[in-house]
């Protein structure tokens, strides 16, 4: 749920990065953090295990500037991708405004992608959301790997509703901001309708 504070003239939106384990959700956030100027960002919080696997969530607040006199702030979260952290994933989807699904382009991970997509749909439903209605974008990550399968094929298997889809290499930043911008736009357009 977007939180609009009329008194402080602030608007806060929550965007969640979803996807299977090791697909690059945290890497997306890390890139955004590294490339944003210091005034616009807060601390990147990473609740991870000793081996850098996300345990609960990563969190990055991002100030985008003003729209119609309102300070616009996006809160970016990632979920832990590993299958057994499902209870945590569900919690993080609470109050979500937009979702970015990060898919792993390696052929061996396709099954995990599909499974995570269904898991997203189910967990959203449990929180009272419908993936068909939520602002949503698909990111095909790790396009640089030799084992990456064709983007068309991934699109066919993973695209849910014709959502904006981006090819990306999160390690080097390709496609990272494009994906974020597209969802941020969808979220703001959603506000317009309300």
């Amino acid at each position, binding site marked *: 749920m977007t939180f609009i504070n009329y008194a402080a003239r602030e608007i806060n939106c929550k965007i969640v990065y979803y996807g299977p384990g090791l697909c690059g959700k945290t890497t997306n956030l890390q890139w955004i953090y590294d490339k944003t100027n210091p005034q616009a960002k807060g601390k990147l919080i990473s609740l991870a295990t000793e081996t850098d696997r996300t345990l609960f969530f990563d969190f990055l*607040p991002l100030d985008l500037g003003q729209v119609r006199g309102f300070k616009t702030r996006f809160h970016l979260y990632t979920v832990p991708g590993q299958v057994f952290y499902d209870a945590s994933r569900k919690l993080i989807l609470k109050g979500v405004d937009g979702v970015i699904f990060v898919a792993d382009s390696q052929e061996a991970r396709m099954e995990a992608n599909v499974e995570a997509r269904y898991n997203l749909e189910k967990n959203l439903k449990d929180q009272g959301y419908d993936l068909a209605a939520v602002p949503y974008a698909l990111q095909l990550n790790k396009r640089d790997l030799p084992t990456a399968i064709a983007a068309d094929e991934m699109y066919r298997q993973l695209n849910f509703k014709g959502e904006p889809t981006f090819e990306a290499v999160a390690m080097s930043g390709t496609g990272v901001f494009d994906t974020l911008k597209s969802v941020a736009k969808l979220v703001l357009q959603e506000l317009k309708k309300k």
Partner: protein
Amino acid sequence: MYEEEYQQIKEILARLQIDSNSKIVFLVDKNGQQIAAHGDMAGVDATSLASLTAGNVAATDGLAKLIGEKEFSILFHEGERDNIHISLVAQRVILVVIFDEKSSLGLVRLRVKKASQELEKAFEILVRKSEETGSGRFESPFAEITDEDIDSLFSE
């Protein structure tokens, strides 16, 4: 959130901070958005505090459900110098009190209880008000937002 209630909520927080002799009093919604704060916020990353608190409460909530409890309404973290007291108000917002040895858990609990009742009332009025006015009368400032407005946010 409307101006009038916002002021009232801020006053309640300010009083709680003084009465409980604490350092910071902080109100967050369950999604991790900061609503209001009072006290010495310098040197505290408020946004992170808000999101971690909400994450903490959400995880504890999940634990409660697992063992068949409706909720754990109070969380308390004790540190060497500072302590954090977290409680749920009206099942919708989270009240955080940070205090050191100048106060005590008992005092904080007592004052939080009183302030919670006041906050509960304020939020009740707030909810009723927003239901009465509905979304129709209170015009969203985003109704006229244009694609250019949105684009301009992203031009670096």
